[in-house]
């Protein structure tokens, strides 16, 4: 029976990051991935003959700085576009640098208010950013918390001064619409910010706590890029880095169960019956699936299984891919830009409302990229690929096929209005609803984060209380996927953090 020190389940960015971290520290690591190729949500797919695109995530915000430097992703062939400019197109367009940068096209009053708000939110995000690289502290006695780094964080919070600290506390759990409407008047800017704040969340801009999700995303990285060759090239570079560190990568190897003996993890059994022995297993797939299916309730306590099953996991985003026979025209926007169609705060909120009832919005809001504008090799010469994240989509509609067809229709209507003449260019259209994303990528509810990223599922509550420090009640079983702190995105932070904890030998 093949044996290693650690088996990592799942070859997404977190699994690859964790495996590399462990191998670089001298552990013998085997990574098992169910799909024929690694990447998970970081994949490039040929969705129509001759047209390739990022299969799920399409913009790189991050990755985690530790992951990028230790894995030397550029040395392993990762090429990125120049940082993206974001545009809200129209007769009177607005552009923004990066996630949260300089805005042009604003009136003078809003410009001043925006620069003050931008400075404040950036400050908050940067203060909170170190949390992403820490094991979440547990509010318990003798919890073994990282007091040194917590102390540093506390000091940096205090050093903002009383007024800013009070502002942070005021705004920490606020909804983003209130923040925007307090300070700004420009619908284009407010719509863009409201969209960005709720991107990938199951929340509208008026949902409670929507600002903290935004701060967390800004903390993940302040520039946006597109990887050349699609997101699959990030996975390819990470795989090379992992293998260079000594990781054995097995693709097409779905795990059937995690094996136990005398209440300790001893390895995994693949769906084909093959056994792999290891002293530890780090799962970078969904926490609920890991615990409920791969371990099974017989080895876990009833209250614990209750909590695992209660993880809220509701994807609210659909992914649209269009094969275009020519270049569409968005007024005053360049195809190398990120184009956001979200005309106002209320437009974003209205797009979220129907999803609460399992219905499709009439006018979805979206973020569009043209990967072919950066890497023409992704489509036949002169042709283009449109890749868009469209919000919001119901994760559990009554009729899945009808909802998908309706979502595609409504999305194309919005696109045609924004870029007249786009529809005749479409050679092929594909839209992935949250349930399609669940089926294809194994993410419960189609949630990119393997569980809603919301304040009640953050830090020591992620994925749920008791397993937030990456270890589980079962000795040798670790959780290190997007379901763990600090969540998903093409970052690798959760996997890196989990591997760090494993190396420190934290006890359950």
């Amino acid at each position, binding site marked *: 029976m093949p044996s290693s020190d650690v088996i990592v389940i799942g070859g997404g960015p977190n699994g690859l990051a964790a495996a590399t971290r462990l191998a670089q520290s001298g552990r013998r690591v085997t990574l098992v991935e169910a799909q024929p190729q690694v990447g998970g949500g970081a994949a490039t797919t040929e969705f129509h003959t001759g047209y390739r695109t990022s299969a799920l995530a399409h913009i790189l915000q991050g990755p985690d700085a530790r992951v990028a430097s230790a894995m030397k992703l550029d040395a392993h062939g990762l090429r990125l576009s120049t940082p993206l400019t974001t545009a809200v197109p129209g007769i009177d367009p607005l552009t923004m640098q990066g996630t949260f940068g300089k805005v042009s096209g604003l009136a003078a009053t809003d410009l001043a208010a925006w620069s003050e708000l931008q400075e404040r939110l950036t400050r908050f995000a940067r203060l909170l950013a170190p949390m992403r690289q820490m094991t979440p502290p547990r509010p318990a006695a003798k919890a073994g918390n990282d007091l040194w780094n917590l102390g540093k964080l506390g000091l940096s919070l205090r050093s903002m001064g009383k007024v800013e600290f009070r502002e942070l506390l005021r705004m920490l759990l606020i909804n983003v619409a209130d923040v925007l409407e307090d300070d700004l008047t420009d619908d284009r800017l407010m719509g863009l910010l409201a969209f960005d704040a709720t991107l990938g969340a199951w929340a509208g801009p008026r949902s409670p706590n929507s600002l903290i999700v935004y701060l967390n995303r800004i903390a993940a990285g302040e520039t946006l890029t597109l990887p050349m060759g699609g997101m699959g090239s990030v996975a390819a570079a990470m795989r090379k880095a992992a293998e260079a560190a000594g990781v054995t990568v097995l693709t097409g190897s779905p795990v059937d169960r995690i094996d136990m003996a005398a209440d300790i993890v001893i390895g995994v059994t693949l769906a084909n019956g093959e056994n792999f022995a290891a002293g530890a297993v780090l799962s970078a797939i969904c926490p609920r699936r890991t615990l409920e299916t791969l371990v*099974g*309730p017989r080895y876990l306590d*009833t209250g614990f*299984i*209750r909590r695992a099953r209660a993880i809220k996991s509701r994807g609210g985003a659909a992914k649209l891919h269009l094969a275009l026979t020519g270049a569409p025209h968005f007024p005053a926007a360049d195809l190398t830009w990120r184009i956001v169609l979200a005309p106002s705060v209320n437009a974003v909120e209205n797009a979220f409302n129907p999803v609460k009832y399992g219905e499709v919005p009439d006018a979805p809001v979206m973020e569009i990229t043209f990967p072919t504008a950066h890497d023409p090799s992704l489509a036949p010469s002169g042709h283009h690929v449109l890749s868009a994240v469209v919000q919001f989509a119901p994760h559990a509609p009554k009729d899945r096929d009808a909802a998908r067809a309706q979502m595609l229709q409504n999305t194309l209507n919005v696109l045609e209005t924004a870029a007249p003449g786009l529809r005749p260019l479409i050679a092929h259209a594909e839209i992935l609803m949250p349930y399609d994303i669940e089926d294809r990528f194994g993410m419960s509810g189609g949630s990119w984060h393997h569980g809603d990223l919301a304040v009640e599922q953050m830090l020591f509550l992620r994925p749920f209380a008791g397993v937030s420090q990456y270890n589980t009640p079962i000795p040798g079983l670790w959780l290190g996927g997007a379901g763990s702190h600090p969540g998903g995105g093409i970052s690798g932070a959760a996997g890196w953090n989990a591997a760090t904890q494993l190396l420190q030998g934290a006890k359950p």
Partner: protein
Amino acid sequence: MIARLHFNKHLLETPFYPRTAPLNKHSEWGAWSGHLSATGFGDTEMEYTAIRNGASVYDLCPMVKYRITGPDAVAYLDRLTVRNVAKLTPGGVHYTVWCDDAGKVLDDGTLFRHGPQDFLLCCQERHLPWLTDATLGFEVAVEEITETIAALSLQGPCTASVLSAAGWDVSSLRPFRMTKVPFDGTTLTISRTGFTGDLGYELWIGPAHALALWDHLFTAGAPWGIRPIGSDALNMARIEAGFLIAGMDFIPAEQALREDRVRSPFELGLDWLIDWNKDHFNGRRALIRERESRASQWSLVGLDIAGNVSAEGSLIYHAKQKEVGYITAALWSPTTKRNLAIAHLKRPYAAAKSDNLWVEIYALRELQYVKLMVPARITPRPFFTPARRRATPPGRF
């Protein structure tokens, strides 16, 4: 849809109510699991005496009962409870407890194995949500059947004779075993179990046959002075037997509001039930941690207290100064002629520092409380365990 109008009555009547109500001359009723339950039938001392010297009958119907069936019933119950269920053979009964994830006791109860895949779990509290959630991953069905079984507890040294006179030979029935006999066109299950620490049996039958059973039993038992008893008399006997009651001697973990009120099996003296060698059971990891780090905070002990004033609810002191525990059940025991109590003691006052224990009793003497500080010493439970309890064949009195 069947109209469920039970809420019109605050407390339900058990199937034996038509017999017990006329006998309950002082209308001494209490509530037990939503049912009317007799606390006495007019003379607690005589009822107690029937338990220890004759034959007593207690209406057990309100006891919560769950039927657990299916191919995984053994595996399910082994995961749920701390004891080894695989060792319980069909026709057998055992006492057990089950814990939450933190290894704190949710309840205790008796588990009856009616067949290879057919169990009955009897307990004090209701647990359907917990039992149902625990079925995940097991091919098993859990059903609450409290109201579909009528049960009587027949306890006392003469009960084997009573059953024999009723036409049922139970001479070969060993303790914690059960047998099935035909009666009134149905099947009567007789188990040699009880809550008195004496020779005794529990009788289980469909509610439609309840009154026929009662009448038959009281006719057959008349020569031995068979009499109904209430919970006051039963409580005296169970304290002498050293048995615990959830909600009285410990707070079930799901109900505890204060975090220091929950108790582990170690802290209730029930760790002997745990099978450490079987597969995972709920709370196992927490209990191993508790055992290895000696984290148990409490001990449950029997106390022998000086004097004859019952110490119910009293606080316990070390050297008359430091408060180290409390009493949950107490009586002056008529059979053992001792002043007994069941008590929780902080560790190490149950072992290393168990000398010099004092009980503070508030004795009500003609409308005036008098504070007594009397010495106590730890004494083994059960306080009373007669040989007739286990003798097979049972003695004929």
